[in-house]
């Protein structure tokens, strides 16, 4: 992307008016996006996003700039502007970069090795499958996106790292309509993979699951409102753990004292059945990468061990403040943003319980088979997440599907109320938003039983 000597020169300039540390983030992002709707391929977009983000850290202060002009001239100008912003004193820094380290995946099939026409066929096939599921399916929307992101990170500590992330996403949204009621069903699959994602199984599963859910919801009853026990299936994804505890363990929020988990290291913060991990190093997962966006190798970090809080997720800046090594969680949406502590693939490890035994514990409760997105207020710990597929359970028996409900709870309280953890695990990909930046993540959980949580339904009951 850029020569070693040029990198060294830019880093030298950026520190020429003061500063302790400087880092250059060069990104070349090539994407293909296909949007199929209303029985036709409506959009096909080829995108190329290239830029450099540069930051100088001086004590607790960060100076950040970026440019889409990645010529040597453009980069010099960017570095000079940053140095002018720092403007402390003249200093003569000579950065010497160590040998380049290269990471990154080699997808089995990348952009060069498949015909763009294949996309059209896949989207058509999915459309036919989704619509033929049931005559009440009135619309099917699907998206395929594949992103090839090459990054180069060089810093004044001498690190010089390249990583390549190829991510492919497919999703389908079925709209069912009957008697004036409209309901939707959604299914997505994503990974740190290339075009090989599109196996026959995936091409079948997306439209089938999306349409099955839309029809199920057409036939569903209103969700009850109030406090109940809940079993969440491993198939539901892990949004609960992402919202209830994940965000609160991001060290920047802890540092700013807006996390309920501040000053809790070594303390019991969850039921002893809960061991929680964030691991960006896992192969093929949507939230994975070789290094994070600060060039720190991704890791397998145990954050909660049998209910006891072990550590937080760090960027370089927060790691320094907390006097711990960076954990490989410094991530950014793209070169336009400075890196901040983020989750990667976050999950709870399996336990020993069986689904049947957990359902038996529901005298009157909800069985959640698919969760949607969520949100959390880290200061209070209150969080919500949507139920995309759920059932009302009476005396351990699944009675009928419910619709239109979120669950609302308080992170630390809910973590204490996890009473059983299943011997299985499931993962779901998503995009996590924080401070205006979206990054790809995966969340995972075994099947769990929560003794009580509030169901935000519309049916008052008795």
């Amino acid at each position, binding site marked *: 992307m850029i020569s070693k000597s040029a990198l060294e020169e830019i880093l030298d300039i950026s520190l020429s008016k003061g500063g302790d540390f400087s880092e250059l983030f060069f990104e070349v992002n090539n994407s293909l996006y296909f949007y199929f*709707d209303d029985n*036709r*391929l409506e*959009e*096909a*977009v*080829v*995108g*190329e*996003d*290239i830029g450099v983000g540069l930051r100088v850290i001086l004590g*607790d*202060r*960060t*100076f*950040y*700039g970026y*440019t*889409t*002009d990645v010529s040597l001239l453009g980069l010099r100008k960017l570095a000079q502007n940053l140095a002018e*912003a720092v403007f402390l004193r003249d200093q003569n820094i000579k950065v010497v970069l160590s040998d380049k380290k290269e990471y990154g995946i080699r997808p089995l099939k990348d952009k060069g090795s498949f015909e*763009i*026409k294949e*996309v*059209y066929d896949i989207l058509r096939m999915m459309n036919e499958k989704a619509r033929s599921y049931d005559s009440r399916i009135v*619309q099917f929307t699907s998206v395929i996106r594949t992103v090839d992101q090459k990054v180069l990170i060089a810093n004044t500590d001498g690190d010089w790292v390249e990583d390549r992330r190829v991510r492919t996403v497919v999703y389908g949204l079925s*709209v069912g*309509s009957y008697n004036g009621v*409209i309901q*939707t069903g959604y299914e997505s699959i994503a990974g740190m993979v290339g075009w090989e994602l599109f196996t026959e199984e995936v091409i079948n599963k997306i439209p089938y699951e999306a349409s099955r859910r839309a029809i199920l919801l057409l036939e569903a009853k209103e*969700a009850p*409102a*109030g*406090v109940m026990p809940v079993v969440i299936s491993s198939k539901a994804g892990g949004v609960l753990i992402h919202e209830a505890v994940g965000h609160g363990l991001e060290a920047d929020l802890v540092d*700013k*004292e*807006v996390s309920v988990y501040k000053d809790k290291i070594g303390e019991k913060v969850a039921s002893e059945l809960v061991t929680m991990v964030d691991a960006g190093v896992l192969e093929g997962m949507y939230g994975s990468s070789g290094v994070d966006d600060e060039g720190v190798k991704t890791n397998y970090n145990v954050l909660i061990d049998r209910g006891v809080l072990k550590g937080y997720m760090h960027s370089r800046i927060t790691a320094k403040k907390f006097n711990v090594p960076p954990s490989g969680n410094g991530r950014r949406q793209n070169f336009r943003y*400075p890196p901040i502590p983020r989750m990667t693939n976050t999950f709870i490890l399996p336990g020993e319980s069986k689904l049947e035994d957990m359902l038996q514990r529901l005298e009157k409760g909800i069985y959640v088979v698919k969760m949607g*997105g969520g*949100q959390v*207020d*880290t200061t*209070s710990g*209150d*969080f*919500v*997440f*949507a139920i995309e597929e759920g059932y009302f359970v009476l005396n351990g028996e699944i009675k009928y599907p419910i619709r*239109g*409900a*979120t669950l*609302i*709870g308080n992170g630390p309280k809910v973590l204490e109320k996890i009473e059983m953890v299943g011997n299985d695990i499931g993962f779901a990909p998503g995009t996590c938003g924080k401070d205006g930046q979206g990054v790809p993540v995966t969340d995972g959980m075994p099947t769990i039983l929560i003794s009580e949580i*509030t169901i*935000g*339904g*519309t*049916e*008052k*009951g008795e």
Partner: protein
Amino acid sequence: MNVGYLFGFIESLKKQKIDCEVFFQEKEKSTLIISRQEVENYQTSKEYGIGVRVIKEGKHGFAYTTNLEELNEIIQKAIEVSQIMEEDRNWQFSKELILKDTKCYPEEPSLQEKISRLLELEREIYSKDKRIKTVRNVVWEKTHENNKILSTTGLFLEYNQQYQYVYTEVGASDGINERSGFDFDVARSWQELELDKLVDKVVWQATSLLGASPKRTQSVDIILPMERAGEFLELISELFSADNVQKGKSILKGFLGERVASSVLNIIEDPFCGEALVPRAFDDEGMKTCRKYFVRNGILENYAYNIYTANKEGKISTGNGVRGSFKALPQVGYFNLYIEPGEKSERELIESVRNGVYVISLMGLHLADTISGDFSLGIEGLWIRNGEFLDPVAEMTISGNLKDFLKNISGIGNKLNFKGNINSPMLKLEDIILAGK
């Protein structure tokens, strides 16, 4: 890159008989993040991007890049991708049209002055109430955009827009409970920002929620203050989009001319109104924007169209073609959409509530399904009994369907601020299910 160069490029495409439209965007952004009486982050940038649409043999292709030296390559990419598309004559570029709307903005105070004011703001938050224990940060961000759209069909549009906002997130504690407050103010220029009010509001939010707890599940009245009501209008705006209507993705499909909302409700788009945060004389496809009602006295009067959706029905675009950035195609969107203010003051609306909740924050808005209309949102707020604020509530949800929401609006406040592209006065709703204990 100068305009002459772009024109030259367009001319060369004309000679090659390629129908093409170029969207050229220049964007400048500055950010300051204040924390613990320090500038924690200072950011400044200028970037360029170009999006190219081609129509070849009735097939539409799109490509974008940040690399301005590769204009010919990007055209080739757009043509290449268009070849897998089916023929679709509904994609069209406007013809023979030159429109310019470049505004001047007042000169800004120096960066140093801004920093001092923001540092002062952080101090004011702490000193306002001793239960404020943390200010996560105070963030200022300014964006200035200049967009040019040129086509081989003789289109040349140029406009600029600028806005800036300050937001802050604070944490309050009474020693036992902790609650947060988040608020922002947005304006075109620094001088128009109302930072004093921001301090008052955010401190009030966080401190008045201290000790909040859920109440039992029941049906209540709801007061949505301006910002929260605006968030709901944003969801509702999806229902008027012709794109959604045509695809069966709007619960308002088939209701044109019919009653869809409470008779007190008027929803208006007024793109060129002087108070609008980002006033626009024409949309991103060169269509003149106009003032219009989507809902008048509860009756659905219009859907919103861009050129593509209008062509599908043989209609004319309503001037609602919006491009989010050089990376996006024209979608159906709005310029200054709002609910028309009513007659009651905010105080009168609150006083008219016998049993209900004043909603301070909504959680999970992005989870609402605007296609089915179903929403179920976490709320924090203050209990109202006989018109008076009582104790704070949290860990509760309000749920329903947007169709009912429109009908349940029983009161509209008389005050409206233009603090975004979609705005609403205070709303009062009746008979909403509140889930809790």
